[in-house]
């Protein structure tokens, strides 16, 4: 009984939403995915002021923030940097996120009325949609997925993909595993490997540039198609 009363009097954060780890070249702040954003900020301040003073004083220390699966807004990011900046010796080097670029991008695609299909498109099967299309599954050799807009495949793209069927040359084809038999964008048809080379296991997307089919890592999508 008494124990509970003591707990109520001291409202210190019991759960660790922020784990601070020291590594060879600085500190890692690991944030939990399962709490409110404000709780993380509060715990940071608490740790700076109370428990971790020793660790946080002295020469400047580079800090890597591991965000987990949380996606934060620009304001929240500002807030975070401001909080950390109260300690002059902490220099934020990187904010890392477990969510891949493709997943982030797919989030956006889902918001922009894409048709989402699940399952495998097998040999002989054809899926055509007028809007952007997101397939959760594989396209097998002999199968075709096509769209008047973009084609996104969260899976292996081994068959034929046709984006911008009605002539949109800005359309793209993206896949977690791009090993197609043929790619088509608007009226352009291209096939590996004589026209473009397939490299290691990267998430990739295909786009047209000056009438040529190009393949790039998914990370460059925002740069090459800023409107997407």
């Amino acid at each position, binding site marked *: 009984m008494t124990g509970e009363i003591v707990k109520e009097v001291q409202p210190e954060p019991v759960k660790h939403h922020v784990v601070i780890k020291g590594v060879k070249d600085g500190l890692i702040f690991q944030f939990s995915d399962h709490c409110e954003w404000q709780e993380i900020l509060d715990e940071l301040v608490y740790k700076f002021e109370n428990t971790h003073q020793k660790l946080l004083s002295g020469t400047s220390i580079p800090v890597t923030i591991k965000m987990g699966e949380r996606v934060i807004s620009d304001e929240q990011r500002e807030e975070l940097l401001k909080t950390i900046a109260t300690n002059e010796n902490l220099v934020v080097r990187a904010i890392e996120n477990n969510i891949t670029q493709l997943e982030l991008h797919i989030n956006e695609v889902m918001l922009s009325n894409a048709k989402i299909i699940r399952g*495998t498109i*097998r*040999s*002989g*099967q054809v899926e055509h949609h007028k809007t952007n299309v997101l397939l959760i599954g*594989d396209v*097998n*050799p*002999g*199968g075709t997925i096509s769209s008047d807009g973009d084609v996104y495949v969260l899976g*292996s793209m*081994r068959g034929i993909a046709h984006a911008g069927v009605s002539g949109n040359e800005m359309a793209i084809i993206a896949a977690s595993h791009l090993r197609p038999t043929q790619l088509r964008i608007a009226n352009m048809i291209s096939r590996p490997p004589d026209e473009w080379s397939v490299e290691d296991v990267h998430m990739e997307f295909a786009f047209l540039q000056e009438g040529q089919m190009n393949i790039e890592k998914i990370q460059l999508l925002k740069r090459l198609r800023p409107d997407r």
Partner: protein
Amino acid sequence: MGEAIVITSGKGGVGKTTTSANIGTALAIQGKKVVMVDTDIGLRNLDVVMGLENRIIYNLVDVIEGKCRLNQALIKDKRCEELYLLAAAQTKDKDDVTPDRIKLIIDELKLTHDFVIIDCPAGIEQGFRNAISGADRAIVVTTPETAAVRDADRIVGLLEKQNIPSPSLIVNRIRPHLIKNGDMLDIDEICNILGIDLLGIVPDDDNVIKAANSGEPAVLNVKTRSAIAYRNIARRILGDNVPLLSLEEKPTFGKRVKKFLGLG
């Protein structure tokens, strides 16, 4: 009430008929009452592989046309109790029967047998539609060749459309040394593309060809690797948990001793 299983592949020559004969026989060896139905009308083979060609009096089309009763057309196997064959007609065509009529026959056979094994013809036309009409589940046979896997993929798609979901896969005629050298598709790769459950793998084995030519299903000769493979498949169909056959051809200690003693 029994279960009707169609053995199909899309591509010809991958071993549908051999697989049907061996799975049917293996299930009968396990004490089940089994009937094998050859739906390859006009190009029947199952009777030859089973060595029952000379016993055919009535066939599937005779039953459909009402020339005989279903029981009269069932040919009893010469080796296994409770194993029967319903042969296809050789003088007719696949278009002479309809899926509905075949389904009626399969449904009737299911009442009196534990398993109805349906041997499907190659292709995706009328013969295929006939064969799958009465099936509860499907086994897709493929070989580790790109063309066969492509066709198997097409078949899986068609089966899904016909509401025969989640077929299982048999990879037939595996040559371990070719896979080892990377000259043949490996089994993981095939499973990856097709995305269906692997029911079993059967190594390429001369005994299977010899057995088929002499009208004896290979599964009867317990010593061969293919026979073990088919028996394992039958046990998995019955719900047993049997590990996959190892493709490594390492002689066991017992075999080496036997060989040393001149017994192997």
